[in-house]
């Protein structure tokens, strides 16, 4: 599903930016002149582009702040789930861990639609990463409260085999 969405978006972007046609070898249809409308709309398009850049910057900030809401909701869910190990709390905790990780992995793709030479995407990107790391920490904290992090000595020795004995003594009561 995710992949399909991304493909659809890329196709849309390509269409709007028609100047860089990806198929230069294909001849234009008869009666179509590419340069005529371009010349006509230069001033209008600049204005349009400025507005678009502002819109993109605004959108990028919105996207960057989105994990915060997520964080609050996760916190509420975790509080609801309680501190015992069972299916619900485990599910919540693992989704709390998985969401930031997947978001961090796709950080490039998330901001791709808002890529613009006039827009500085670094700040929203940093905020996005910071918030997701916060979410990850929250998940880890939850994991620890559930007792699933190997932070105790007992976690490292629980299956330690017994040490070998050097000596052996056999015997008992003799037969009579």
């Amino acid at each position, binding site marked *: 599903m995710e992949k399909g969405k991304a493909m659809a978006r890329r196709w849309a972007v390509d269409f709007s930016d028609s100047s860089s046609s990806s198929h230069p070898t294909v001849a234009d249809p008869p009666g179509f002149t590419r340069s005529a409308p371009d010349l006509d709309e230069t001033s209008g398009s600049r204005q349009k582009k400025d507005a678009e850049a502002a819109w993109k910057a605004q959108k990028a900030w919105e996207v960057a702040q989105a994990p915060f809401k997520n964080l609050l909701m996760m916190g509420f869910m975790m509080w609801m789930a309680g501190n015992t190990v069972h299916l619900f709390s485990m599910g919540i905790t693992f989704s709390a861990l998985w969401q930031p990780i997947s978001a961090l992995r796709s950080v490039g793709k998330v901001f791709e639609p808002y890529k613009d030479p006039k827009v500085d995407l670094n700040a929203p990107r940093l905020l996005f990463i910071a918030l997701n790391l916060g979410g990850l920490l929250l998940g880890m904290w939850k994991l620890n409260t559930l007792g699933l*992090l190997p932070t*105790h000595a007992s*976690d490292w020795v629980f299956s330690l085999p*017994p040490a070998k*004995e050097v000596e052996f003594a056999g015997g008992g009561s003799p037969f009579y």
Partner: protein
Amino acid sequence: MEARFLLGFLLLLSLSSFAFAIYEDQVGLADWHKRYIGKVKHAVFHTQKTGRRRVVVSTEENAIASLDLRTGDILWRHVLGKNDAVDQIGLSLGKYVLTLSSQGSVLRAWNLPDGQMVWETDLQISNPSNSFLHVLGNVKSGRDSLSLVCNGGSIRAVSSIDGLVVWKKDLSVDGLKLKHVFQPPESDTIYAIGFIDSSLIALYHINAKTGELLKHATQASSVDLSSEISAISSDSLVALDTSRSNLLLIKFMAGTITNHKLPLSDIVQDFSGLAELIPTKSNDIFVVKTPSNVAFIKVKGDNEIELIGKADEAGIVSDSLILSEEEQAFAVVHHSNNAISFQVRINGREALTEGIKIEDHRGHVKRVFLNNYVRTDKSHGFRALIVMEDESLLLMQQGEVVWSREDGLASISDAVVAELPVEKEGGVSVVEVEHTLLEWLKGHMLKLKGTLMLSTPDDMAAIQAMHLKSTERNKMTRDHNGFRKLIIVLTQSGKVYALHTGDGRIVWAHLLTPLLQSESCPSPSVLTLRNWRVPHRKALQENPSILLVGRCGAGPESHGFLFIVDSYSGKVLETQILDHSIAEVVPLPLADSSEQKLHLVIDDKLNAHLYPRGSDALEVFVREMANMYYYKVENAKEVIKGYAFKKGCSTGSSAYCFGTRELWSVVFPSDSERIVATARRKINEVVHTQAKIMTNQDVMYKYISKNILFVATVSPKAAGGIGSAAPDEAWLVAYLIDTVTGRILHRVTHQGAQGPVHAVVSENWVVYHYFNLRAHRYEMTVIEIYDQSRADNKDVMKLVLGKHNLTAPITSYSRPEIATKSQSYFFTHSVKAIAVTTTARGITSKQILIGTIGDQVLALDKWYLDPRQTANPSQEEKEEGIIPLTDTLPIIPQSYVTHTRQVGDLRGIMSFPANLESTTHVFSYGIDLFYTRIAPSRTYDSLTDEFSYVLLLITVVVLIVAILVTWAMSQKKDLQEKWR
């Protein structure tokens, strides 16, 4: 907090099964129960024309049983207590079986058809000694008949109807031993004949109805009398003198006694050695058995006797059987090679001779009981019950063995486990596969029906039958789960049996001692058996074998012998008569290159002899000799001693003989302590982990050592039975002793407690059972041992990096600090045997197997015996599964592994692992055998037999179809969306 993946999972599983049992229809799926009676010592036939023909027997194992004469099946059986040996049995009124037991002090009557006890009378005999029972035929007061019990110088007449003592006569003569009682027909007078101090013969006339002494007479005997007599007629009997070479004919006519000495050499030519009188009943004939032959002798007139028959070889002679007024029959049985010749003599004349082939693993004939039946042509036919050397019981009739019972299995003394052969590849025909596939499908369809509750009662019965006869469990090959094994048992008679765990059948049986019988080994007896070769890696092509150890004579200094027996076939691979005695066999945790386990045989001079004899075995042992020790518990001297081995022994120069050097001794003060029980861990027990994780994520390190010996001592006054000591004089001291260094690791005293003590040691804990005199209840105590010297290994970083010494080999000489935790509980039952479950890897939680007084096996979860328990466990502790501390251990009826069965006279419980970690085999033995498989934490690693594969298959198929259909539908819908 800790990673609870594995532990938590196991715990959840185990918590969900606090108590679990099997369903009624699962009985017999994995378990089997075999009933035996033991070595028969008395037999009374009951062969009326109507009703079932049966024989009532009593055995050395103190059992009384009624057997069906046609099949040998047990109709009913009772096992009397250990100290209640049966002296005599008899029939009374044609419907009661009378048994005299406990040296003549208890008389019981059992209903013949169903074995219900009718009455029991304690005869209150002050000094129990040899006594006998005489059922009077013709003293009838109403419909009652009397039974006389004679004991020393007293006679008691007991009513057969209700067991009341009708009269009691104490003849109060010092040294009087009554020998015989008889009653002339149609008379109310009883004659009782006894000997006083082997020199006087006494005769008493007693009124049968009142017990009044009418007359008595004594007469000096011309010879010293032994205790063997034979009553030959209503007024005479024959006695043997103490030199066993003279007969004394005693007549007691009309109140006077005459006796007449007859040297045996006059009657029997070439008589030498010691004679033996065979008890007879009447008709003027008696039988004398001498070392060279059996003589039938008839008394004629006054002091005239005549030899009327002779059996040449010294055979086994049965009691006499009266056929008619004039005729009495004896059976004489000879044994040669693998056949016995069965001879019936009527009045000394040979009447019938039959030769019967029997398996040579049964040994010699030990006892014969003769019975007759009337054929259609009014002639007599004979049947005989024969007890063999291996304690088996045969019924012989018309030259054939009608049935046989392997009653030697009632006296198992030791048992080991062996693997079955590996299944060979190929060799299964297509037809067979198709057949089994069809069967398999059918079976699963039936099961599916059962699961979906569609099955009819017929189907249910078919499912049940299928469970029971499933051939899979009875195959003679190894299985993946390790459920099929051989249990190799040794019985008191020295016979070795291999039993299949699937259905308990005997795979092979051998009586080995006759093979050895020779001048150099006069009376061989097997002491114990051990696993000799357990192939697993290097020597897989070799068959596993077992070692049998025994000695040639009775004393501790008599020479020993070894047998090595193939466990698959029972074939003897090696026989060896040793040139030294056997005091102890110590299996070592070492093996030579062909996987033969090293054993040290310690002789009575404390030299150690190494077996197997081989240079690589010697090399292996010498390399490890400095770390090998021996300890000896001397119960009589209240001493435990520890020894090290050294080269060169005191008796010879053999390279395989090693001397010992005493290192330490623990001497218990004999005026205050007496050793009553010792216990140690099983040598082959596997422990999964050395860490014990507490509720607060703390770690305790278990002190796991194979060299812990648990010793329990009690005060000398409390060494007797319960009630022999007051609480103030009784105490029980429990010790944990390191057997390498002799160090006492722990010692605890229980004031007011006494034995019997039963203990079991496993991992780092010991559980023992004893009696608390103050509380008047049995108690069980658990001691857990922890290693304090490793307790600081708690730095996570070091543990992560592996910088710890927890897996470094440990030595007892480092004197590790020990900490113990213990807890005591009341326990309802007294205990006959105690054991613990063992599994392949030691992960599964343990159960303690307790043989209860009711001859059942109770599986008690170890977590009931947890020193961490408190009266109010915290939330965390509850989560962990720690139950609140209670004063009494709960007994949950469902946790009896023997369910409704009883293992008569339970003596031992054995647990051995299957290949599946969750499952363990339990084999318990007494007079009966019971085997089952249990899963202490349920079968978490396999699907049960109940699992319906067909249901699973159908579910999977349905799911796949559903996925395909929905996928196609969604594709179609997507396409339509796009065209819109």
